[in-house]
């Protein structure tokens, strides 16, 4: 029997005479009967409406901020009360239980989350990937 390399030179498949000569026109006329696709507008044109909205919001925010500065020049805007670092630590951070935090986070980070696989599941996966099982048995 011939070696694989010796056979590769020729293609046994044939096509009708002048098949490729007429092929492109045939494909194009068949496609043109279909609905014309919307033009590919490119990235910038696709996000242009979003950019316009973002720009409008930014301008309105700037106008609003300017108006507040003009009409309420000396009054402080309501916001968070000013507190020192020590006050913040004593009032807020000391109330958080670090152990409760660890219990909440640890299971997510744990490697125990990796599912246990049965040998059948592993073999199914190898078959799906077209790995020849006889090779694996040889290694084992």
């Amino acid at each position, binding site marked *: 029997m*011939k070696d694989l390399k010796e056979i590769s030179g020729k293609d*046994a498949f*044939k*096509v009708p005479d002048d098949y*490729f000569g007429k092929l492109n026109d045939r*494909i194009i006329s068949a*496609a043109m009967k279909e609905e014309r696709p919307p*033009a590919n507008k490119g990235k910038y044109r696709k996000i242009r409406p979003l950019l316009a909205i973002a720009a409008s919001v930014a301008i309105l925010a700037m106008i609003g901020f300017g108006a507040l500065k003009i009409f309420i020049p000396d009054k402080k805007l309501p916001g968070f009360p000013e507190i020192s670092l020590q006050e913040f630590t004593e009032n807020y951070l000391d109330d958080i239980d670090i152990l409760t935090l660890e219990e909440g986070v640890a299971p997510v980070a744990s490697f125990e989350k990796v599912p246990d696989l049965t040998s059948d599941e592993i073999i199914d996966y190898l078959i799906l990937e*077209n790995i*020849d099982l006889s090779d694996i048995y040889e290694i084992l």
Partner: protein
Amino acid sequence: MTDQEKDIIGLFRSDVERGFRMLVEAYSKKLYWHIRRLVILHEDADDALQNTFINAWRKLSEFRSESSLYTWLYSIATNEALTIINKRKRDRAVSFEDIGSILANSAEGSTWFDGDEAQVKLQNAILKLPEKQRIVFNLRYYEEMPYEEMSRVLKTSEGALKASYHHAVRKIEEMLGEG
């Protein structure tokens, strides 16, 4: 991405029909042979090729210009070829592991197949491979497609493709040696 691909994509934005014509002219022949080696029959390859380009035309606006046209079209063509193969298997209950049976159960018969004994044996060996391995073998052996591109077409890692091709060659050589 090649300069030709960039030109085609550029034309899609300005003159979509001219862009599509250029796309068909650039890839129709290569895709025909890719499909033909999978579906075997000329009439099926012709149908699958036409469906490939009609699908590409419909999905043109979905094509993302950062990916390659070539791999995008190969993915569509491979899916169309597999659709035809599955339809043939259902409709005619044909064994897709023997080229003689495929040709005998078709209207075109062996009109467009001119293989000698060795080529018939090679095709039968290829047909006995699992579907995905067959695609990998054809893309590598006949079209010499780099694994990197094949990985994008078949959405499989390069390592798995190399292993798959290696096993395909070994199986085919074993089958050729049997006769």
